[in-house]
């Protein structure tokens, strides 16, 4: 398509550029004008990180062609306040601690600005409704909403500007609400994440990914892609000079598929080219011949005799089994007045950090291979990459860029190796930015789990024995499965002292999207089962749920499930604190019905109802269609 002339006003300045008419407004702002405060989170108008004002209207710039903005007045997060200053809404975000990783925050600040401009007296519900198109994965929204309410009150005069000031330190900086030091750079969009960084002479990478869940690679023909003008290099596993393999516990994953693919979305080859578009076009020209293999899609199937083998080193498809034994479970169950058995399952969960994976690699003047990325573990990545590229460890350097949300999902070195190889092959800086779809198919998830549970109790609620068996789908690669199974096993039976325990946790290989580290590392899946069982037991025994927990809780001197003697256990205090704060009405577990004093009290919100919740201005018409 021929380029067109675009003339528009951006943050109060006239801008004229020749532009690709297919370019999105988001790319125009980021790539042409270097206004990287406007972020890409999903590219599909779902997350709101790319929100800007176009002629005063809040717009998701990933959905708008730049050509459509010709003649328009654009306002980005960089244009809200004069450089070096903060607007009231930005100061309110700073005050309340509304920014955490910060990646969604420019979009949130824009949405909040829209609230203050269009509905300066918005109620709490209207604020929530108007902010509902912006996703945040870190904050739980509470402090963001608090910030919008604070800014509303300052703007309307209900609160004084002093409310935006920092609290003093008192006699100590420990225990004080010092405002986040990184907040000003986040609320203004100034902070550069890896995908915002550019270097002179930089190449762009695109990755060819497997369309098959399990297939042998018969051949890879890169010749056509390599011959394309503007392509600097194509890399495959053939380019790995050292010992290929990475993983948090077992190094079972090659930088790019080697001989076979084990899950849909696995990297097979990568291209570095002058532009991102060109790199993507070239990646499509790589020809890969596959021979499909039978796949494994459930952990139960993976354990069957004769099941396809996914990794040669693990003929039984077992990633890890962690056993825990304490006391004598047979004796414990024999002593029980009540034995209950049940099964629980949890689903696979996406981290959904708003910042998709991104990185930039280069070889410096001292021949040090350097990778900048939002890695959660640069120390271990450095060790692994040094083996993979066969260089001494001091010739490998990792720099951790600001992480736009991690939650464990950025502990796996799933792309940094490709960047390093391309930089070594071209001696030019190379950048890779995942699309949301790539991030979803290529990155690890929370382990889905199935738990078979048997619990024995005395009639007074004391647990006499637990038998706990967990089976988890580890997916195609080991990643953190071993550690997740270990933590799940250690924490399995909850904060209770139980004399007789038999715990087994297992993770197995399948051809599903790999599972890996995710906030709680197996602790959540295991304790969901335990806390459900304790509630079921309380129901059967006619006990209050707090009471049954107190009768079993760990105390100073208790022996944990792994037979560690505890010097202190605060479970008594947190139970009491939650009971008191929630104004818990004691009673046996059951369907207790609505005739109670504890429901719908302080600490609850009103339920959402269907229909617009925006208030009608007096005499005016409702603003929302």
């Amino acid at each position: 398509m021929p380029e067109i002339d675009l003339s528009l006003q951006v943050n109060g300045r006239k801008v004229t550029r020749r532009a690709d008419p297919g370019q999105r407004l988001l790319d125009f702002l980021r790539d042409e004008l270097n206004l990287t405060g406007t972020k890409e989170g999903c590219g599909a108008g779902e997350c709101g990180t790319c929100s800007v004002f176009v002629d005063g209207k809040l717009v998701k710039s990933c959905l708008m062609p730049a050509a459509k903005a010709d003649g328009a007045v654009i306002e980005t997060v960089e244009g809200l306040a004069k450089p070096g200053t903060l607007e009231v809404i930005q100061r309110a975000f700073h005050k309340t601690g509304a920014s955490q990783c910060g990646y969604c925050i420019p979009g949130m600040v824009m949405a909040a600005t829209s609230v203050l401009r269009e509905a300066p007296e918005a109620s709490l519900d209207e604020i929530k409704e108007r902010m509902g198109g912006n996703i945040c994965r870190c904050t739980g929204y509470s402090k963001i909403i608090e910030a919008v309410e604070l800014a509303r009150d300052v703007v309307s005069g209900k609160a004084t500007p002093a409310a935006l000031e920092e609290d003093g330190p008192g006699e100590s900086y420990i225990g004080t609400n010092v405002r986040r030091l990184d907040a000003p750079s986040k609320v203004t969009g100034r902070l550069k994440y890896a995908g915002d960084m550019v270097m002179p002479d930089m190449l762009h990478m695109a990755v060819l990914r497997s369309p098959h869940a399990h297939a042998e690679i018969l051949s890879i023909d890169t010749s056509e892609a390599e011959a394309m003008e503007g392509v600097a290099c194509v890399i495959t596993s053939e380019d790995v000079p050292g010992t290929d393999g990475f993983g948090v516990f077992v190094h079972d994953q090659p930088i790019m598929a080697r001989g076979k693919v084990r899950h849909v979305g696995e990297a097979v080859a990568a291209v570095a080219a002058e532009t991102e578009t060109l790199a993507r076009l070239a990646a499509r020209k790589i020809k890969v011949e596959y021979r499909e293999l039978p796949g494994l899609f459930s952990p139960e199937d993976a354990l069957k005799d004769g099941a396809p083998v996914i990794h040669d080193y693990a003929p039984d498809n077992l990633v890890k089994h962690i056993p825990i034994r304490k006391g004598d479970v047979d004796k414990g169950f024999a002593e029980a007045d009540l034995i209950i058995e049940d099964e629980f399952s949890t689903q696979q969960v996406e981290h959904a950090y708003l910042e998709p994976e991104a990185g930039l690699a280069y070889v410096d003047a001292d021949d040090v291979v350097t990778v900048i990325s939002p890695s959660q573990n640069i120390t271990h990545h450095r060790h692994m990459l040094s083996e993979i590229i066969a260089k001494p460890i001091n010739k490998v350097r990792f720099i951790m860029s600001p992480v736009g949300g991690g939650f464990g999902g950025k502990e796996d070195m799933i792309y940094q190796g490709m960047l390093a190889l391309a930089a070594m092959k071209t001696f030019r800086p190379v950048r890779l930015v995942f699309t949301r779809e790539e991030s979803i198919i290529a990155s690890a998830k929370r382990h889905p789990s199935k738990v078979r549970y048997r619990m024995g109790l005395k009639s007074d609620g004391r647990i006499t024995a637990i038998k706990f068996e967990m089976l988890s789908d580890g997916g195609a690669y080991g990643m953190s499965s071993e550690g997740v199974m270990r933590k799940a096993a250690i924490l399995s039976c909850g904060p209770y002292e139980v004399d007789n325990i038999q715990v087994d946790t297992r993770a197995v290989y399948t051809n599903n999207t790999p599972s890996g580290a995710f906030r709680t590392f197996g602790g959540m899946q295991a304790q969901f089962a335990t806390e459900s069982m304790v509630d079921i037991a309380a129901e059967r025994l006619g006990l209050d749920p707090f009471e049954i927990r107190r009768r079993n809780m760990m105390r100073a001197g208790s022996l944990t499930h792994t037979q560690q003697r505890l010097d202190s256990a605060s479970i008594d205090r947190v139970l009491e604190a939650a009971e008191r704060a929630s104004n818990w009405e004691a009673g046996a577990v059951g369907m207790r019905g609505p005739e109670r004093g504890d429901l719908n009290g302080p600490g609850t919100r009103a339920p959402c109802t269907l229909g617009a919740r925006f208030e009608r201005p007096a005499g005016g018409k409702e603003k929302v269609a």
Partner: protein
Amino acid sequence: MMQRKMRGRGVAASWYGIARTATVDRAGAWAELDDGGTAKVVTGVTEIGEGILTVLAQIAAEETGVRPEDVTIGDNDTARSPEAAHAGATRQTYMIGNSVALACREAREKLFTEIAAHWDVEAATLVAFDGVLRAEGTNLAMSMAEAVDICKKRGVVPVGSGHFTSHGTGLDPVDGSGRPWQAYVFGTQVAEVEVDTVTGEVQVLGIWAAHDIGRVINPRGVEGQIEGGVVQGLGQALMEDYQTVNGHTTTHGFAKYILPTSLDVPEITSVLVEDPDPLSPLGAKGIGEPALVPTAPAIMNAIHDAIGVRIKSLPASPEKVLAALAEEEARQDGAVAAE
């Protein structure tokens, strides 16, 4: 007789270990009291959103006597900063916070030794806070900027280094016995829900979250971690579901993979319980991961309280809630028919 909208409450307790599991965990840091009464801290850490940079600045300020905004924290760079290992495992405040505290104490000691000699007082009488250094029991006081200047003129650059170790042990391969962590935290959450028995939709209206985090460094930061953890737990409890068919995902993006938004968020009341860690200089423990653990079971237990059915397979989607209600109704009809 069930009304259309039913409310209920549930509770779940939890526990968690701090820092890396079943191994020796370690972290290191360098500190320097710098010109102008500022401080420089270098350690292998970058913000992943939890607020660690602010926490470390508070710790450095407390330990050296400068103000948090006068603390500069170096980038996490394997070629430029000491190892502090990874950003995960609820280990940042515990491992790196304590390393920074120890490094700052060493730097402060060097400064105090010089200033004590300069003033001719005992070093033990010196106190520095909020940019001012004083000798207790005297009128002697100077700014930290002056103190660093005098220290350097006496030929001493006040630098320090520190490392912190958490002594976990591996698990026995047969019976799993071992000491996986030296510090534990506990938590309890209460959830209040409303279930629409016609649509199967569950709304979480309130969460009361009581968590032991050891000594609290930044209360708002802790609340932010709890609120974020609760909402991730709520997402897993009610809506999030990554699905594949023969290994191909059917939830490619946020249109199909449903995440909680501002409209799904309950009112969250955090209660911070402080049971300080006796084995570390700061006494702080951690909150990042533990905040999420009890949320989903508390919500499932609340659903049971509201409508009498147990959802044992996450998420408790409207379809599953309706199916469970229908099953319960059929069971009760069967029981009546049998009488």
